């Protein structure tokens, strides 16, 4: 029988692992580079500051779309983060370990795997129709919050659970109440994990299209209130590709989208690191 030497298997394994790593990075780099290189040429001041005018040639820019995206993400996070963190704190610190809690936990896991368009249908039925919020940024944000809630809860709960039990004991032994323990010890300690969860949620929110079409409508007018409809960058990009000949404008929109995500992540990271440095004394 042929026996392959351990040295050879080691070499093969290393080559394989390096290969998969390189391929993954390469795919990522190619996609981003393609969009950036092709798209950057069509970005100029007027593209960023004029609203889309529609038509087959995709006239105009993306100003109102940018504004709408920022509003939507801001509102979504304002709804999502307090709710999600509250639920995560409840599940990790307060909920007794019983059948009910396990059911809630199982439920959030299932919900995290439900396709976003299903949440879109739910949002359409509840927020747009039953609650009369119409096609609006509010309906869209509420739907996105529902969509992202399970992910945020699960990830934040894991981050809180990862805080060593000894921190809880130390705080309680010093006469802290349970809430003081959560607020002054556990949340700061879990913050890096929670921030990562929020960044992932922002990324997903920026990328959603289908569930927003059915809850936010598709107007390109400048949003003036929570009840205005709107169109996000991703929705606009889809529209440009499918309904117009303006492929270069779609690429330019893609560039703005990528840059927006990178900038948002950078700001969120910077804020949390500044906070942590002050809190923990680690420079």
């Amino acid at each position, binding site marked *: 029988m042929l026996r392959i030497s351990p040295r050879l298997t080691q070499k093969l394994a290393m080559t394989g692992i390096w290969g998969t790593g390189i391929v993954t990075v390469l795919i990522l780099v190619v996609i981003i580079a393609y969009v950036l290189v092709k798209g950057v040429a069509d970005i100029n001041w007027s593209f960023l500051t004029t609203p889309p005018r529609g038509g087959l040639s995709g006239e105009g820019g993306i100003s109102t779309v940018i504004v709408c995206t920022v509003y939507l993400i801001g509102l979504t996070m304002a709804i999502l983060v307090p709710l999600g963190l509250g639920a995560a704190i409840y599940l990790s610190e307060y909920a007794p370990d019983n059948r009910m809690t396990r059911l809630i936990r199982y439920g959030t896991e299932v919900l995290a795997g439900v396709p976003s368009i299903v949440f879109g249908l739910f949002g359409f039925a509840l927020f747009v129709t039953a609650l009369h919020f119409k096609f609006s940024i509010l309906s869209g944000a509420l739907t996105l919050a529902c969509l992202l809630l399970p992910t945020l809860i699960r990830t934040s709960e894991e981050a809180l659970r990862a805080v060593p039990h*000894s921190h809880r004991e*130390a705080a309680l*032994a010093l*006469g802290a109440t349970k809430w003081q323990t959560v607020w002054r010890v556990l949340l700061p300690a879990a913050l890096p994990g929670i921030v990562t969860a929020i960044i992932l949620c922002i990324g997903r929110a920026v990328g959603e299209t289908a569930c927003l079409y059915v809850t936010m409508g598709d107007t390109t007018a400048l949003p003036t209130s929570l009840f205005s409809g709107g169109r996000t960058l991703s929705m606009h990009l889809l529209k440009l590709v499918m309904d117009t000949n303006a492929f270069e404008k779609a690429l330019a929109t893609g560039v703005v989208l990528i840059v927006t995500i990178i900038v948002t992540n950078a700001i969120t990271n910077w804020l949390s690191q500044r906070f942590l440095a002050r809190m*923990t004394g680690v420079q």
Partner: protein
Amino acid sequence: MGDSEAKIEAVRFSFYYGKRQALKDVNLRVKEHQITALIGPSGCGKSTFLRALNRMNDIIPGARAEGEIMLDGQNIYAPGVDVVDLRKRVGMVFQQPNPFPKTIFENVAFGPRVLGLDGKLSMDEVVEKSLRSAALWDEVKDVLNKSGLALSGGQQQRLCIARALATEPEVLLMDEPCSALDPQSTLRIEELMNELKARYTIVIVTHNMQQAARVSDWTGFLLLGDLVEYDKTAELFSRPQDKRTDDYITGRFG
């Protein structure tokens, strides 16, 4: 027994984790301004007893206490006792140094912040005083804004002692405070305990009999939830009354 008043008195105190009984009818008087050591093999109930003194066992599901523990004559297990109040009076230092991932200053300031300063001293003064009491001030006075986790193990444990002292407790509970430390750091902590007993009543759990013999004034020997013997440390180690105590301290088991 007394050459001084009993600060803490356990009266027929039993403790259960679910169905398992961890302490059986323990009667014990802790003298004020003395160091009381609890020794015994693993699982004998010494840590359970220590954690009963500031009701830290309350957070374990299914835990239940019977009997009384009197602190200055008041039963701390009586209905209506505020555990936050109790823990302000009875501080605790744990086996593993467990500073918060915060600055040295904020670690010490934690207790006063959650309980509120009494107004006599500013936060800066409280922090300095506590760090001085824990013999750590000279080493950290220039790096108060560095992380508490950047300190060595022995320094971290003294930081935890300073943190416990900052709430001005009357009693200090120490749960094997040196078991994670090197001999040098252990010596520092033992010297510190000797200095602190003038102002605080100290109860220490230790698996190290030499340590109990070195630092404590009184020693209790527990076995399987029973307090087998409790006496002045010198007496207990030189003339144990119970065969089991003798066997344990001479190293025949445990």
